[in-house]
């Protein structure tokens, strides 16, 4: 064989190969992440479970076991029942509204028009901006005296000044406001998800449908929707999980009021466990989120598995 001197392959010593072993290196690489998550998510989760069945408060950090007493206490409490109910309404309402807005927003953004880039950038804002800051802006918009919404309604003659809606002070309106703000935060994310899904549908499938005679709506509902369901399902999981467990919107806009009309699980857990220091009941309240989350996540995962194309 043609050569130019010594072959460069050194038969290296065998113990140098530790960095080549896929299994060793693989475990070593994943270890820090797993460790972090186990220590600061897994262990605290178990701690929360234990708090909920103990009599722990910050004034009396007792680890004594009280069984399901805390859960019985909170289920008997009408405020808690109201909170649980609110949380479902809040989540359901904002997700549905957000999805609808997202679906149609995606359809609008699909088509090229002048200024589309700019419009898209603006539409992303509610999701991009930190939740607390956007909520504060809405808080100001709903202000009992200076609400710009009310000003507009009055100026258009729809309501009189004395009848101006008290968005954050009236129980039904407060829940509506909180749902609207959350839907508003969610819908750009829904648009992004829908767009990603729709653009992933291969053009030749759509073309085949057109040649087969499917019109716009049929193509939409019988071809596109089934094909984007997996990715929409993922988006929905995120949406439901973050809405169901949210505390920011309620904390900033209504502090759970008026009279608990907008109190949600995350908020009440905070009030009870952190503000009032009753850790054991706070943990019990927060733990009510877990079954719902588990059901949602497992249902979605199985749904996606079955629908893998």
């Amino acid at each position, binding site marked *: *064989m043609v050569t130019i001197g010594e*072959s*460069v*392959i050194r038969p*290296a010593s065998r113990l140098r190969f530790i960095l080549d072993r896929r299994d060793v290196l693989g475990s070593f690489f994943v270890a820090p992440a797993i460790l972090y998550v186990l220590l600061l998510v897994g262990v605290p989760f178990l701690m929360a479970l234990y708090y909920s069945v103990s009599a722990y408060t910050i004034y009396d950090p007792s680890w004594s076991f009280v069984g399901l007493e805390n859960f019985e206490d909170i289920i008997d409490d009408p405020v808690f029942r109201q909170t649980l109910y609110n949380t479902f309404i809040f989540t359901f309402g904002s997700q549905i509204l957000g999805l609808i807005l997202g679906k149609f927003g995606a359809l609008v953004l699909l088509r090229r028009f002048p200024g589309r880039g700019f419009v898209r950038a603006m539409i992303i804002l509610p999701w991009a901006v930190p939740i607390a800051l956007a909520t504060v802006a809405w808080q100001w918009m709903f202000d009992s005296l200076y609400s710009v919404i009310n000003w507009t309604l009055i100026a258009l003659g729809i309501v009189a000044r004395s009848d101006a809606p008290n968005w954050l002070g009236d129980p039904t309106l407060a829940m509506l406001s909180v749902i609207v703000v959350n839907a508003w935060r969610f819908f750009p994310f829904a648009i992004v998800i829908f767009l990603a899904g729709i653009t992933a549908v291969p053009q030749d499938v759509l073309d085949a449908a057109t040649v087969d005679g499917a019109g716009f709506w049929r193509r939409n509902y019988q071809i596109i929707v089934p094909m984007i369901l997996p990715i929409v399902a993922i988006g929905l999981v995120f949406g439901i999980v973050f809405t169901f467990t949210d505390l920011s919107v309620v904390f900033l806009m209504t502090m759970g009021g008026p009279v608990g009309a907008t109190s949600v699980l995350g908020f009440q857990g905070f009030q009870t466990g952190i503000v009032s220091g009753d850790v054991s009941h706070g943990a019990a309240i927060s733990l009510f989120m877990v079954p719902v989350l588990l059901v949602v996540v497992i249902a979605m995962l199985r749904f996606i598995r079955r629908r893998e194309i």
Partner: protein
Amino acid sequence: MAAVLTRDIVKKFADVPAVNGISLNVPDGEFMVLLGPSGCGKTTFLRIICGLEKQTSGEVLIGGEIVNDMPPRARGVAMMFQSYGLYPHFTVRNNIAFPLRTQKVARAEIGRKVEWASQLLGIGHLLERRPRQLSGGERQRVALARALVREPTALLLDEPLSNLDAKLRASARLEIKQFQQRVGVTTIYVTHDQVEAMGMGDRIAVIDRGIVRQVGTPSEIYDDPADRFVATFVGTPPMNIVARSGGYLGFRPENFLPRDMINGEASTEFQFRVDRSEYLGSERIVYGAIEGFDPDQVITAKLPPAHVAEEWIRPGEWHAFAVRNSALRNFDKDGKRSSRL
């Protein structure tokens, strides 16, 4: 001494054997082609020789040394991937120098070897470019230079031509073959394309479903196939195989000619009904059925158009065709070659 030797290599992925016992002997300097359909295990086998996969059992010897537990860099092999695997963020010079850098070769030495390798492949003028600025042919040469620069004991190629379009493939094929002949490095080349295999290989190992069906020179593979699989895999159109007397009889389309064209030699005659013909310019392919055998089986004949006029071969007509007995191949009921009748 064999440059590359494998003994009974088995590789299972979750109980499914991808490679089911391959023992292969590649002498120094040989161009060995591993030929087989997709999924037959040839690429897995190549990767095991390289060290990118670990075999379930069996031994790999390179340069006489068992390399089972060594990573690729200690085995003395170089590999060329399907899309060449050039480092996009390095210049051509650094691409070629990389294998030397990892072995901590001295700077001056690296410079010398890079010069030598790039001269050998005629890419000296491309050293400062980046891969994305190169044409397909240039990239192939850079990949070869990079493989060569370490002077490996064996060069492994994994279907390097399959991403090229047909026109480029022929010239790329020639270039690789010439390169190998000039440099003399032991080469193992994987492909599913039998034209490539026949054109390039010193020897061919035909692989199907994880085992080697036959190892031999191109003419041995073509003229003396060990079983039905090899007989029908190599050759276009494939060999005609008909069932007869508890076994099979095979004859290649180019040997299935009008009786009048066969003079002198002993031959076997068939009545052939023409169904369809295709005129390909350099030859005419005729499809039909032969009397006395399965009427649904399509038999092909490859006729030189110069000798057979079109009006003579018309659909529906019966003609007397024949095959020289020396061109008949017999297979037993399991498909293996048996001695001639």
